[in-house]
């Protein structure tokens, strides 16, 4: 059996991935999602539809959240891409990752990378986001586990911590109402 037809010629790009220079070669039709997962083994970026409908594959390109399933890998040439693998630094979680963990904002954890990156973009743009701003910013990301509420609370708590303000977790978030 010959495999010649099954092998496609690869193209090559250079870009910045999670703050580090990266080079990768891949078949030109591949999406950024596929390049990240299959050619760079960064499986932290998940997929839920591969049609731009669920927000699960959200990554940041030049600081802006995009759906990596809708962007060709070739278009990442020279750009700065941030995935969930780039959020924690030196073993220290990003404040959002910390609050997501504390509040159970990640249940199955499958949509979490996308939510974390969309929330990161929001907080960097708007350090004191209102609940409505958070809803708006995360409206393109679907979560089937949490009902979103723990996610809002985690974003608010992380934003407060990043502003350097101590914020007590409301008791009702952890134990329910009296």
């Amino acid at each position, binding site marked *: *059996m*010959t*495999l*010649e*037809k*099954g092998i496609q010629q690869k193209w090559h790009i250079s870009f910045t991935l999670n703050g580090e220079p990266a080079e990768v070669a891949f078949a030109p039709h591949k999406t950024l999602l596929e390049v990240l997962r*299959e050619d760079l*083994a960064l*499986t*932290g970026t*998940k*997929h*839920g*539809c591969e*049609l731009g*409908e*669920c927000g*699960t594959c959200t990554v940041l390109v030049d600081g802006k959240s995009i759906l990596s399933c809708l962007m060709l890998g070739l278009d990442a040439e020279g750009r700065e891409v941030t*995935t*969930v*693998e780039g*959020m924690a630094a030196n073993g220290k*979680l990003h404040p959002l*990752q910390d609050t*997501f*963990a*504390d509040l*159970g904002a*990640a*249940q*199955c*954890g*499958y*949509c*979490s*990378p996308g939510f*974390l990156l969309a929330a990161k973009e929001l907080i960097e743009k708007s350090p004191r986001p209102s609940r409505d701003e*958070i*809803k*708006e910013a*995360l*409206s*393109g*990301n*679907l979560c*089937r*586990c*949490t*009902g*979103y*509420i*723990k996610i*809002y609370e985690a974003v608010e708590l992380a934003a407060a911590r990043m502003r350097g303000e101590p914020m007590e977790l409301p008791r*009702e*978030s*952890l*134990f*329910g*109402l*009296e």
Partner: protein
Amino acid sequence: MSKGNGKPLNVVGKPFRKVDARAKCTGQTKFADDIVLPRMLACKILRSHEPHALIRNIDISKALALPGVFAILTGKDFPIPYGILPVSQDEHALCVDKVRFVGDPVAAVAAIDEDVAFDAMNLIEVEYERLQTITSIEEGLFIDEPRIHEYGDGGNVHKKVSLEFGDVDEGFAEADLVREDTFFYEGNTHLPLEQHAAVAHFDPDEKLTLWSSTQTPHYVHRALTKVLGIPASHIRVIATPNGGGFGGKSDPFNHEVVVSKLAMITGRPVKCTLTREEVFYCHRGRHPVLMHVKTGVKKDGAITAMHFKSFLDGGAYGSYGVASTFYTGALQTVTYEVPRYKFEGARVFTNKPPCGPKRGHGTPQPRYALEVHLDKIAEELKLDPAEMRRRHLVPSNSVTANYLRIGSMGLGACIDKVVKGSDWKNKFSWEPAMTGAQASSLASVSDKTTAAGTVALQARKLPYGKGIGIACSAYICGAGLPIYWNNMPQSGVQLRLDRQGGVCVMCGSTDIGQGSDSILAYIVAEILGIDPFDIRVVTADTDLTPVDLGSYSSRVTLMTGNAAIQAAERARELLTIAVAEKLSVPIENISFADRRAFDVENPDIGMSFAEAVVLAESKFGTIGTVGSYSPPRSPGKYKGAGVGPSPAYSYSAAVAEVDVDPSTGIVTVEQVWIAHDIGKSINPVLVIGQVEGSVYMGLGEILMEEMAYRANRNAVHKFPSMLEYKSPTTMEMCDVKTYLIEDPDPNGPFGAKEVGQGPLLPVPPAVANAVYNAVGVRIDEVPITPEKVLKALREKDRGRDPRFGPNSVPNVDWPEPLRVLTPAEGGDGKEMPRVAVHS
């Protein structure tokens, strides 16, 4: 069961992080599709585009000739059928002679990559001979030929059941009011964010390993053993963490069988990841159910008898359908007292994706019907619907008419919390929702009613368009019986302690995001006095872990929790003996906390946990213990008594406040207050997460989610995509106020009951009742879409019945009911001998 010897709890009840929280928040959790093995092939499955057809021929020659294709399988490679229930072994990994729905698997390709597999799949030529399609409940009931399956209760009826507990006619004769209503609950699907995926590897020593996003690795293991014809001991199934399950990954699936066989044939690892469209075809979601409920009540709302009929559209295969059918009739009796009860249920096969268990399995549909029906009854009786429910609760520690044993029962406290929290009494009134026809029939009754709870005609409290509604519910904490008959435990836990102080918990349970891995760690940590994050949890691996039946029926916390308690107590006992001997203090003085073992009377005298393990290992040898859990026997002994019994029942009450725009029909749920009777929270923040997630999913079901098919003979799914299958985004999700009621249940680990499914149940009917309260129309069909609201409002404007919903149910020849005397009538739980007593 142990409650921790009454000592203060250090772990249980605390809002700890999940043990896998960091992995999940850094994207490092390995889901099935994240697994990549050297030389791995990709699998694509060709699915039928015909809803019902005979397969005349399959030509794979062109596909096989494509470079990069390694193997192609068709139905002839899978002669042995399988299915989740022993009574419905009706699936083949690839269809053998005929296809039964658009999406049924026909052939499978293994190729060098997904692109080649896809191209090859499209080169497979299938000749079909179309058969008449069966697309609805009515057609399933009344069109006998062609049959979708050659088994069942005749024609295209899969299952018919008829049960009667006590004489319901006698009960209706005693009633002051007998009311009948008809409802329809549309089917909907789980929509987990993770698409199902499976990876198989057949190693050179001829052992098969399957990694799969399944909630039930044990059942997949059994199915593979049957279908592949190799011994169970040669098969290892590992459930990867599920990226959402909700019941949708509880069946053994064709792609799991297919990749296993392909790996065996090619000698290379094979992966299959379903597309989102395929996930819609896998389905096994909420059954569409048409329901009729007839209830007799006294003036104060006390139920004298109930007769419930349900008709389930099962789709193309059995799946859990027999259990689902029984579940549509099982739990009506565990909230309010129902002294006499009759249930008739029928499930039909149709040429649509198979239905199965979704969060609440078979009970959200009847719960919605029952709670809206009770709301209508309360209105007729001019009773406050919250108070009417509160008055007639099933007592704790009782046995229902259908022989379900109730333990702790916190629904009264739940109702009180949401009534107070929502300011119900200052918001709810029947004005002006009450319309002439409904109010007149029992006007005389309410005139005489003076007991507390009667709502006098009073001024409307909320403006028109704003409404408030209440509903309650109950759910099982694990099914009393396993899916296949056996006398073995439903859950096993094995504990290994090493001489460095390490503790490893092994259990077959599967974490689907609910936190079951963490629950094991918390419970073991509590009993051994160590930190939950010191523990290694190994789960869902049929080679390494004792059997747990899986993450379904809200069984995991209760069953694995009890098994974990037993295993941990056995380990603690060994450590205690060794430590007491070393410290020369009585055994009962030894306690474990803060990673230490010590004398309670002199806590400074003690040692580290690791030193305690060394002593125990020196004395007894390698320290490993096991624990197992089997539910108590149910008092019900009649045929059909297997569905409904549970070690404990959780309860929920919800109040919903809505805004209905009468010009557009758009319903906005502004706030839900929900109280859940959890028994005891092992971890309250995880419990609240389950409650909020349940409210969310219930909201999606009542407002927008539906599996809709084109209205022609093709039975094609209208929109198998996440864009058009509407589910709530952040913009639709309401605010939620959660109350946890803690009343420990004697059968629960530390008193804990379930929370994963129960809190979904009251949400759809609470919203439906609130919509009525807002604009005075009854939407007796789920989901409540703007079109239905507008249609009902138009009916109201024209002076007609202000409702939208089905008007009747099919007239079916039900089998003679199996009659059972109720406990109150001195019954023994067995059916009465069948005699021709009724004409």
